[in-house]
């Protein structure tokens, strides 16, 4: 084991898969000489050359068109769209084409395409650079939507995504790139499946269901809650579509209380979707309504104090847990 950053873990996944399979190539804006907006692809141009590390014009539709067409033509593209906000310019091809082709064309084509995108707020990027939007894509049959929270998963899931035969939207929270974590030594091959969540912390009183950067905020909240005698189980979904619902329901059967925590907006999103699934499949096991921690229902403001108000924080998680968990006698 070593400790490396989320960014380096992603780069290792790209490098290993490119070395392993000649059909894998990467494309996007400023990914070659510049090394990627978030430096994820730094050094890959020098290592693999122009053929396999393709700088593209600033044109999201043709970036995804190229990736999609080349996947139909036998390649395994990994497109970088800089941010998920820009993916809306290519969302026609993602939703109307990539998600549809296998089904609409009678099962004939495979679309082994990965789209890497930065998402999330907290760095004062303003309203057009701070969205999550994972729930928009997770709504669509024919897509896979994954969103790792640790360097280990970033590497293992990106490798799985590249080997997958369907379009995978791979979402990276901007504030996680510098996060460090344990990753097996180079040469120690591993992958992480695209359909399994993971229990980050075990507890008996309440389950926090979360993903992406909110995993870390929930872990901090769980530490605080433990001091007050509340034992919190934290589940990192890792994949939004498909979702590992059994993991959530197993935990529910133990704790009988769930809070869903996400950075994105409240209405019609992942949190409400997961809550609805819990009610649909686990209603009898609930001893309290499902709690929901989420971003405020506004476009992201720029000003730092306002942005901090708009984002869900540790105290929001703690309050949501306390709202549905009976206070331990000793803590009153």
């Amino acid at each position: 084991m070593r400790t490396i950053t989320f960014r380096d873990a992603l780069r290792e996944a790209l490098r290993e898969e490119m070395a392993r399979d000649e059909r894998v190539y990467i494309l996007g804006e400023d990914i070659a000489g510049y090394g990627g907006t978030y430096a994820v692809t730094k050094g890959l141009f020098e290592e693999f050359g122009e053929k396999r590390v393709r700088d593209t014009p600033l044109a999201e539709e043709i970036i995804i068109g190229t990736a999609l067409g080349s996947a139909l033509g036998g390649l395994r593209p990994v497109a970088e769209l800089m941010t998920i906000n820009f993916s809306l310019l290519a969302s026609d091809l993602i939703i109307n084409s990539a998600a549809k082709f296998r089904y609409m064309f009678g099962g004939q084509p495979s679309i082994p395409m990965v789209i890497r995108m930065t998402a999330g707020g907290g760095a004062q990027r303003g309203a057009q650079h701070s969205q999550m939007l994972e729930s928009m894509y997770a709504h669509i049959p024919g897509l896979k939507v994954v969103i790792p929270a640790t360097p280990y998963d970033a590497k293992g899931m990106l490798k799985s995504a590249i080997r997958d035969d369907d379009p995978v939207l791979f979402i990276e929270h901007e504030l996680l790139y510098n996060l460090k974590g344990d990753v097996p030594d180079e040469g120690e091959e591993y992958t992480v499946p695209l359909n399994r969540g993971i229990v980050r912390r075990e507890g008996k009183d309440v389950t926090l269901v979360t993903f992406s950067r909110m995993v870390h905020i929930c872990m901090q909240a769980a530490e605080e809650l433990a001091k007050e005698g509340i034992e919190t189980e934290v589940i990192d979904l890792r994949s939004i579509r498909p979702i590992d619902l059994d993991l959530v329901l197993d935990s529910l059967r133990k704790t009988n209380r769930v809070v869903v925590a996400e950075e994105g907006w409240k209405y019609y999103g992942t949190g409400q979707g997961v809550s609805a699934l819990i009610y649909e499949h686990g209603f009898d096991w609930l001893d309290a309504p499902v709690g929901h921690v989420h971003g405020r229902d506004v476009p992201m403001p720029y000003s730092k104090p306002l942005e901090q108000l708009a984002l869900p924080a540790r105290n929001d998680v703690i309050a949501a847990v306390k709202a549905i968990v009976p206070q331990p006698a000793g803590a009153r």
Partner: protein
Amino acid sequence: MAIGNIALAGLDREQLLHMHYQMVLIRRFEEKAAEEYTLGKIGGFLHLYIGQEASGVGALSALRPGDYVASSYREHGHAILKGVDPKLVMAELYGKATGCSKGRGGSMHMYSNEHRMIGGQAIVGAQLAIGTGIGFACQYQNTSDIVTVMFGDGAVDEGAFHESLNLASLWKLPVVYYCENNQYSMGMAVTKAWAVTSLEPRAAGHGVAYEHVDGMDVLAVRETMQRAAERARNGEGPTLIESVTYRFRGHSMTDPAYYRTRDEEARWRSTRDPITLFEEQLKEHDLITDDEINATNERVDGEVEEIARFAEESPVPDADELYEDVLADGSGAIAWRNKPSTPRD
């Protein structure tokens, strides 16, 4: 002129008569589809290719079997010309399990991996971006295959047109952008939609070679496509071909075409019908007789009846098919762990 054309095309009589047969086949196929549509046997939309046969036959006859075609929603003819069995195309129109897209696609989504018919697209212009990507795959893998992207004049108005031409020119991709300018995007005349009513400056703006051709002249189209295909195969990059044609029917079956006059339609039908023009050209050079034309028509009539019968008698898809092929691994929104749920208490 006409002798020169035929000599230049380098085709023997058998090849020329085959092209004539193909034109008659895709016209009669479309006429049959229109009949079945009015009888309610075909649902959804139906965009007919009638009038544009020379544009399709001329262009696709210049390609090799390994070349890719990415097309629009007016693509029944393209699929047939690419080698897809017309029975499977008709069955697709009927929504039958035997359809070339298993009945899941319909009129606008004919597809065949085997024949490198990379789909009809119902999002206008999508095939330009996708076709450009296929071109990149051809170049990346050092094959001699090329891509022909078929689209109408309406697709030129989409941003994908410019993003595609720019990238293909920049990377010298082996793509032929083949615009079948039938002069109306649904009801919008090109003269109302285009600030400049030639595509030449748009091609030039992206450094893309440009060719203009009479889309009603099958041999001229073929020669134009041959030049473009050669450029693509030689690594000289993309060509934009503007093939001027006319659809004799409305945009779709529900279009009464109020946006153009009946006189205009009659003029095109009576003076510019591509099948009639080709027949006259062949007769002029003693390459076909009226009896042979009649024989071809009768043969095609019989074939089309057989095609429709096949579609009619084919089974509809099983209900089990509903959830198949969404993803390769069969997963849906929820990745169940396949264990029985345990009731509480």
